[in-house]
């Protein structure tokens, strides 16, 4: 009897402590979850849950219910954050929401994207030029937003020198002609995320 009471007290303290830690940010992130789980398990052990001893079924069932409770708490927090986001963006169109996300995530401006889409015909072939390590990701992303234009990448040439505004090394004419490329999109700026459409013959060549 005394063992069960001790287990119940210990379990209650652990579970309560763990639950309180959910309200506290790091450095307790890694402790709260096992504290709640262990505490609830000890409580289940003490209570017996209709069984006089700890059974795997009791333990797993208790943890399942504890997991559901944790999920409800996380859902509540996430739900509130989502509702705040909806309230903030309620007046925005889907395109404006997309542009806001693009600017926040990779620094690409929706106005740049709209300008490129206006300038380059939908049936055109486009060469994307960039030369910083980071903006390779932006180039990849641009492929999606430039559809249905055919987008090409060229990895074989010298550096493009886009950041310091010098002339650009381009693939040879045969390569460009075979793909019907007449447009380039230059990715510039500190983060390499400012995109600009340029007719290929206006690109300053090395």
């Amino acid at each position, binding site marked *: 009897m005394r063992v069960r009471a001790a287990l119940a007290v210990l379990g209650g303290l652990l579970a309560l402590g763990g639950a309180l830690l*959910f309200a506290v940010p790091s450095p307790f*992130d*890694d*402790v*709260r*979850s*096992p504290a*709640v*789980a262990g505490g609830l*398990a000890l409580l289940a052990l003490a209570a017996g849950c209709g069984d006089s001893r700890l059974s*795997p*079924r009791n*333990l*797993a*069932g208790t*943890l*399942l*219910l*504890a*997991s*559901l409770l*944790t*999920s*409800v708490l*996380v*859902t509540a927090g*996430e*739900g509130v954050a*989502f509702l705040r986001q*909806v309230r903030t963006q309620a007046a925005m169109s*889907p395109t404006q*929401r*997309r542009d806001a*996300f693009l600017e926040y*995530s990779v620094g690409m401006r929706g106005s740049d994207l709209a300008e490129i889409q206006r300038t380059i015909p939908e049936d055109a072939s486009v060469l994307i030029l960039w030369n910083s390590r980071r903006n*390779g990701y932006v*180039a*990849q*992303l641009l*492929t*999606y*937003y430039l*559809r*249905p234009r*055919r*987008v*090409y*990448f*060229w990895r074989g040439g010298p550096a493009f020198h886009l950041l310091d505004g010098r002339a650009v090394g381009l693939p040879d004419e045969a390569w460009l002609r075979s*793909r019907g490329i007449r447009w380039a999109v230059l990715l510039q700026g500190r983060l390499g995320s400012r995109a600009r459409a340029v007719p290929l013959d206006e690109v300053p060549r090395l």
Partner: protein
Amino acid sequence: MVLGPLLWLLATLATGDRLLAWLDPRPRPAWYRLSLAFLLGLAGSTLLAFWLGLAGVPLKPWLPAVLALPFVALTLAKGGSPAGPSPAVGRLALLLLALFLALPVARSLWEPLKGWDARTLYGVYTANLVHEESVRGEGFSDPTRALSHANYPLLLPLAQWQLAGWIGRMEDQAVMVLFPLCEVALLGCVWGALAGRVEGPWPGLAAACAAGVPFLYAVPDGGVASGYADVPLAALTAAFCAAAWDWLDDEADGPLRLLALLGAGMAFTKRGGLLVALTGFALLLVFSRRRGAVVAAAAGFAALLAPWWLHQRALTPVAPQNYAARLYTVAVQRGGLATEGLPLLGRVLRQTFLLPGQQALFWWAFAAAAPSALRLGRGPRFLVLLTLLTAVSVYLFLLRSGQAAEAVNEYSWGRYMLPMLAPAAMALGAVVSPPGPCCPRDPASGSPGDPAGCPR
């Protein structure tokens, strides 16, 4: 915007229900039957479209409707697969399921497409399919057209191509309906597999426990609203596990036919799906008495997948990934098992058990249930071993893919764990439910079977 996705859903359900009636016509509860029908329709219709595309048939926008037409006509003429008695899900479980599903559904339909792979990989592939009307177009075959993988599986892009066909254009937001539907199907399979075997609220609570894993609704990179292939793969894996459990119960041929198609669908969704399917077939081979039938099903799986397998080998990967060589380099040459393997193990264990904001306490519950599940019978044993072997495979994948050296991407492990969600939830549900008199159900009538057949 609403009509197109709705018609696509009905066409997919009709296709899948017809396939279900042909492949394994046993009575099933309504939600389980619809879930299986959706996933079979998804796998069957995309594989069919791929084969046609490979044979040179142009992937016109009207083709999805034409391909669905005979299935719809047959379903209308002959009816769908037989319906069985539907046990109640339980009020608490329904409430929790609604709560946990509300957020991913709202996020999918409200937020702009955010997932990186959803745009740079699947989105670009879908655009290639829609605009080039071919699976062999320049967008797939010319390495200068792509920055990363050009040979990734096509189930998701083909499903999005179908949606674009029904909607009339390629639409960012509308294709997102696919992912919450996959989650609902996943939960339907978890519930359905358990509802036929145990009684009380536990099947519904086990499904709710899986739905409550925050990774599905709280994580931007890999959750339902991110548009990645992980959720469809997890759903197909759930159906695969449900069919495998049916097979291990009665060793009738029907589930094996389902397994062949669902396994092919898994491998056609994501490369990791091939590994999970092969692991599943290997375990079935070990646990089955009719091993020849399992080998025949595995051969059917290979035959369904062979055209894709041969086709993707002909495509040059833009970034060649020799995983075996990398694993050798990391693990043997650099002594990486100690220097990289252990820190990686620490990180994945932390992400599994210590981040309630991503996994709740789901894996604690599974860890507590697994030893008992191993003693419950062949079905639960299969589910636990599939979960554990998949976890080991994902760990080795992370080790060999070089992600061990840097911090494992905050969400990589959680994303790769999604296929394990359904088998783990099924095993958990089997353990926590009280011993009932009704397992397994009689396949002919769907009514509770002989208590002697109960795995306990």
